[in-house]
């Protein structure tokens, strides 16, 4: 909802100035949330919200059903994801926060993140297409030194049903989240 620009007449100038400030805040989206450095503990009104910023941790607190709840930006959101094909020349089908994926051999791929993680302890999971009824491919984190790294993740694809052979599925996905 926006405010009409009423023309005040016969009122003190301060009141007109106050009206102009309120109109600017509301009509141009200039409302600023309160920013706190410790978690809110007061009894809010349902719908009240504040930002929290302390020690590099950013949260959005909102008061609903008589309780403060929060979403932590660095840990409650997906940091990066990718869906790609391993057949032919390979291609990124869709992604977020991924700069590239490199084919390092059959069933061996290196994903390069756009924005690095703060450490190598981020969480990741994946999956791929299972090619036929006689196969059972899965995406795994490659057991090599320094993997996962802050800027890259190397994965391999193996077939549990055919001698753990390496495979290049037509479609693979990885989702990762952690501090960035």
């Amino acid at each position, binding site marked *: *909802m926006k405010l009409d620009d009423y023309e005040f007449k016969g009122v003190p100038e301060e009141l007109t100035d106050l009206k102009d400030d309120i109109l600017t805040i509301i009509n141009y*989206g200039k409302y600023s949330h*309160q920013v706190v450095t410790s978690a809110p503990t007061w009894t809010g009104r349902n719908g009240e919200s504040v930002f929290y910023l302390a020690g590099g941790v950013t949260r959005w607190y909102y008061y609903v059903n008589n309780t403060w709840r929060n979403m932590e930006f660095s840990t409650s959101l997906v940091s990066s*994801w990718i869906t790609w094909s391993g057949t032919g020349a390979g291609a990124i089908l869709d992604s977020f926060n991924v700069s590239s994926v490199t084919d390092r051999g059959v069933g061996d791929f290196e994903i390069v993140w756009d924005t690095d993680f703060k450490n190598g302890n981020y969480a990741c999971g994946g999956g791929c297409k299972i090619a036929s009824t006689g196969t059972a*491919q899965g995406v795994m984190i490659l057991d090599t030194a320094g993997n996962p790294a802050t800027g890259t993740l190397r994965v391999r694809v193996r077939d*549990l049903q055919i001698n753990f052979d390496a495979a290049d599925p037509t479609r693979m996905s990885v989702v990762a989240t952690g501090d960035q």
Partner: protein
Amino acid sequence: MKIDDYDLKGIPKEVEDFFDSVKTIFNYGKYSHSLVVLAPTWQAKDGETVLFKSGSAERLYFFLNSGWTAIEINSQLIRSWISFSGTGTVSILDSNNVTSVTRNSLGDFTLTWDVDFANVSYAGAMMVKDSGNREAVIGITDTANNPALGSMQVWVRRAGAVIDPSYASILTTGAQ
């Protein structure tokens, strides 16, 4: 905090109408964020937020610590997740944005999303419990038009066998 219903007297009707509108906005949550098509670059006050919409990209920008940061709404939210048991009668243990899981046959399940995806290139991460101390995997069935906007068919396998998992979990993210 809400605005009390002050009985303003002796003021022009325009002033009274203006403050009635202000009261409605604050007391009934009618404040609208600024909606921009370019990333904000101006110097704001800490706590200021704007919505960004350009093409399929939707972001919530917030100004904190003297800089703008954004949440990419179509890329940073878990859109659907499910944990289910496929043994006996298939059952959803817990889920979000999943209307059903159907057992098509042994080790063959179809998940139906509540809200569809905007394209079929969404990402899925999935795991199953091992079976009989033998490695097991869950993967997307390699059949035409799978995954679809509104569903995903998956297979569960272990070395040498097709199985119904006692526990399987899938989470997805992508544009909706």
